Structures are given as structure tokens and as C-alpha cells.
């Protein structure tokens, strides 16, 4: 990040090298731990994709965070404008405004959004309800309180609260194969900018015109 002037807004993006992903699901686990997501909610999952037909089959593990699309189909359908694109490119949800209609889940072509049905891990782990992740930098107190995002739609935030502290998203930091890169697309010298120009680079469902901010290398 070379440009440190105060008016510079980074354009966050992620590059995932599929050749380096071993499919260990560490990103999924660290994401759940970092964001303390309830049962049924996973911001990041690792999908298994098969290309070709037997015997010429290639199998990929495809980690899928939110694509933070530049033209997000989820944003235009929200009836109360509770989800929107931030200046830094992250698609955010206002959990104090979301009415829980789940229309954005329908609209997302990547299955990247999930609904917080209100369950918790209280039978399985201690203290789950005592602390919530400070998503978007908002302290929401214990999960049993009204401020909890229960009954609203949840999604990957690129660990916005960690970015504000100058840290990388949890999935990037914990990836055992260093398959994930994170940085600023506005900075032409950043690793993500360089890798985005690679001939190996592609994006998921590019034909839909959503403009994903998550770039894959195959």
C-alpha cells in the first residue's frame, strides 16, 4: 500500500490461487471463529468443483467468500436499502435496518448470503452468546440482546473490523497454503493488482456482469 494520503480510499480485493488451495477448510473455520457466526451461517465455504468428464476430470477446491461485486445484484433488490456498497468496495449490510425478507439471498448468484435464523451454539460451546464479533466496527454486545443481527441477512465483510485495525481478513491470515492474497486494487503495485493481470486470473460467473472483487487463479 504505497499511497498513504488521507483521502485515498483503498479498493479492497482478494485473489485466491486455486492451485495452492488444498481444501483444508481452515478459512471456513477461522471465519466462523472470527465472526462468531451462528449455526447455518458461514460467510466462507470451500466448494468442490469438477471440470470435464471422466477420464479427463480436474477437481478444484473453490473457496467462496462474498465476491463484493462492483455491480451487486443483491443491493438493487433490497426493499429498504439495508445493503449497499461502501466506498472501499465492500458490500455491507446494515443489521439495524434489514427487515429479513431474504430477497438479497435470492438475488445473489454465488450463494454468498445466509439468513441468521436465531440459533446459537449454547449447547455445544461456552459463552457463545456472551460476545459477538464487532462486524463493521459496531459493538453489538451479547447475542441474546436485541442488537444482535438475529432475523437479518448476514454475509462476509472481508473482515471489515480487522481491516480497520490494519489486519488482513481472517481467512487470508490463516490459509495454510498461502493461497489467498488481499490488497488494494487502486494500487497498481499491490500483489492483488499484479495477480489480477495474470493470464491465470478469472472470476466466477463473469458472464452475469456482476464484476466480482474476488479473483481466482487456476
Amino acid at each position, binding site marked *: 500500500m504505497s499511497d498513504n494520503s488521507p483521502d485515498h480510499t483503498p479498493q479492497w480485493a482478494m485473489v485466491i490461487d486455486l492451485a495452492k488451495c488444498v481444501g483444508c477448510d481452515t478459512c471456513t473455520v477461522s471465519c466462523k471463529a472470527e465472526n462468531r457466526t451462528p449455526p447455518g451461517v458461514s460467510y466462507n465455504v470451500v466448494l468442490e468443483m469438477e471440470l470435464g468428464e471422466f477420464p479427463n476430470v480436474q477437481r478444484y477446491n473453490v473457496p467462496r467468500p462474498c465476491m463484493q461485486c462492483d455491480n451487486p*445484484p443483491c443491493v438493487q433488490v433490497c426493499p429498504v436499502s439495508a445493503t449497499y456498497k461502501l466506498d472501499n468496495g465492500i458490500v455491507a449490510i446494515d443489521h439495524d435496518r434489514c*427487515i*429479513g425478507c431474504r430477497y438479497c439471498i435470492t438475488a445473489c448468484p*454465488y450463494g454468498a448470503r*445466509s*439468513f441468521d435464523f436465531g440459533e446459537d451454539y449454547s449447547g455445544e460451546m461456552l459463552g457463545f452468546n456472551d460476545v459477538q464479533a464487532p462486524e463493521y466496527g459496531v459493538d453489538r454486545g451479547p447475542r441474546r440482546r436485541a442488537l444482535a443481527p438475529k432475523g437479518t441477512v448476514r454475509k462476509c465483510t472481508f473482515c471489515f473490523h480487522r481491516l480497520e485495525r490494519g489486519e488482513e481478513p481472517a481467512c487470508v491470515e490463516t490459509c495454510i497454503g498461502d493461497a489467498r492474497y488481499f490488497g488494494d486494487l487502486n494500487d497498481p503495485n499491490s500483489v492483488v493488482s499484479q495477480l489480477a493481470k495474470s493470464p491465470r486470473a478469472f472470476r466466477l460467473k463473469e458472464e452475469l456482469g456482476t464484476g466480482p472483487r474476488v479473483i481466482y487463479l487456476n
Partner: protein
Amino acid sequence: MTHPNSAAIREAALRPLDGAGAGFWALLTGLSLITAWGLAAWGYQLVHGLHVTGLSDRIFWGTYETNLVTFIGLSYGGAVVSAILRLTGAEWRSPITRLAEATALVTLLIGAVFPVIHLGRPERLWEMFTRPNLSSPLVWDLIAVMTYLFATMVFLYLPLIPDLAAAREEYAARGGPRWRVRLYDRLSLGWSDAPQQKRLLEWGVGVMSVLIIPLAVTVHSVLSWAFALTVREGWHSTIYAPYFVIAALYSGVAAVILVVAAFRRAYRLQAFIETRHFRYLGFLMLTLGLTYLYFTFSEYLTEGYANTRASVEVLGLLLQYRFAPLFWSFVVGGVLLPVALVAVPRTRTAAGVTSAAALVVAAMWLKRFLIVVPAEALSLMPGGLAAYRPSWVEVSITIGAAAAIPLLLMLFFRVFPVLAVWEMEHGGVQGVPARGDD
């Protein structure tokens, strides 16, 4: 046949307002208990959150969306039977217009509750009004349903005014009960059968008959767009708006037949609502049913013949695999059997047409379920099929809502006349001369 005279119509319309037998109270109690159980289940869901439903992060729209589309669809019968038949001067409709219009209002009221039941945070519904995002199809839904609801109320109310005046006179002459005289007096807005009033009323009903049709078409078109505007295979289809509208008309006419049959029996209206009414409504239902089958065929042929992977998967689910028993039940029980019941002269009786209508209403719920759920069951990303089974909460709320429809209609027709007396006496609001049909 001879047309019943004014006194007989008045008597038949106003008599049921007087007293109710044990049957009425028994049915009222039964339906109230079922509705209360549904409300209790909703309360349980409000307290515990939506995880008491069978929904998951993959199948996140289910029974409540099915109910929303189904119940609002039932309200279309009122629009067709009343408005279209009124505009085309079909004289036979006048004894059933009131029943049809009341059915429209009640089913619409019940249907309009389901978007609220399905919300994760229903207490924030007001945000739809305070900061609506006009690019969202759900906001269009809200606007369309609210407008249609208002229009349905006006459409029911206008032709009711002279009848309320008649009821006012009747009860004033009898000297009570006081609340009835006061209610009818307020609501009849000083109707005195003056020529000026008649002209205004006829104009108003005429305008509403024209207006209600595009409004009704708008509601189901917009409902369909909530699905069709997404990129999901099985939903993303240009035929969806007319497909939904035809479905709504089909089930709506069936709902009117059921209500007409029930009140004809309970209120002993056989002299006014004859077998021919069932026959005509049956033919209307038959036409709409075959149209719906044609739309279904056209939709699936277009999807299936292209042979893309996703469309073949959706169609396979419907026609061959998991949802096939439900789908073929719909085709046989929801279209072929009802059409046969109406088409064969031997079964084209009041009972036969009513049975056909009951099949249609049930099967059209199933069809809406098959529109909402299978498209979600398929994964958009690599992954398996998702499963969905409605929980007892969803089932209870659905049954409670279904019971609330006859309950509200029973209560409504204890207070308001069941026959459109004024229209029957005046040979139609449009001034179309009565025809000596049959």
C-alpha cells in the same frame, strides 16, 4: 324460469342477518379455534425466531411465500366474476357478485399477512414505507397489493350502499337492534334511491369494474417478477407474469365456486343461485384450467428443449425425481380431473363443479409450492440438493390462515346482505336488460 320478485330477494338477503342456528355457532367455534392455533404458532415463531420453520440457508423461501401467492391468487375470483362479467353484461352473475367480492377482500387480507409472517424482523416493516428502495420488486409488490386491497374494498363497498340502506330501513321499521340501525345508517351514506345517487353509483361501479382488472393483473405480475427477475433457473422466465395471472384467475374462480356453494346451502339460496351458475362458473374454470395447462407446457418445453444443464436439472426434479409425485398430482388432480368433472355432462352438477373447485384450490397451492421450492433446492454453486419440509409451525399457520377465510366470511355475512339486492332488482348496474336465460 321466473325471476324471483323483489320481496323474495330482500327476504332472502336480509333473513340470514337475523338469527343463527346451532350449526353456525358450532362452525364458528371450530374455525375460531383453528385460527387461534395458527395465531399461537405465529406467536411462537415471533418469540423463538424463524429457526422454528423448516427453512434453511439454501431454501429460505417456502410455505409462507407459497401461501402469499396462493391466498392473493384466490382473491382474483372476485375481480373476474364481478368486474369482467359486469363489463360484459353477463346478467346471471348478479346473485353471486357480493359473495365473489367479499371472498376477494377476505382472501386478500389473509394473503397480505404472509409477507409479514415471513420477515425475520417484522417489527421493522415500517421501513418499507419510510425508506423504500424503488428499484426493489418487493416495494412494487407492496404498492401493488396495497392499491389492490384498497380498490377491492371500494369495489365491495359501492354496490353494498343501496343494500345497506335497505337493511337500515328494515331494522328501523322493526325497531332494532340499535347497533345495526346505526351501522347501516352510517355506512349507507344517506342513500335514498334518488336518480342522482343512482347515476353516481352506476358511474362509480362502472369505473371500478374497469380499474380493478388492471390492478389485479398488476398484483400477480409483480409477485411473479419477484421470482422471475432473479437469475435462478426455474424462476427466470418471461412467461411468469401472465402465468401467475392465469393461475390466480383459475384458483380465484374455484374459490368463488366453493364460497357460493357453501353459502347457497347454509343460507338456502337455491332459488337465486341455480345449477346454471355452477355450470357457467365451471366453464369459466375449465377454460382457465386448460389455459394454465397450456402455459405450463409452453414454459417447460421452452426450458427443457434448450437442454442446458441447469434447466434439465430443474425439470428433472419436477417431472422425474424428488418433486415428481407432487407435480403429477397437480397435473392430474388440479387440472385433468377438474376439467373432466366440468366437461362431462353427467358430473356437471352443483356438487360436481364444487368438487372440481375444491381440487383446484388444493392443487394450486401445490403448484405454487412447486414454483417456489424446487428452484431453490438446486444449488447455484457446485453442491447438492437442499431439502425442505415445512415444520409444524408453518403447517399450523397455513391451516389457521385457511380457516380464517371462511371464519371472516361467516362473520361478514352475519352483518352484510349476502345477495346484491339492488343489482338483482335493477337488472345490473350497467343497465343491461335482464335476459330470460334457461
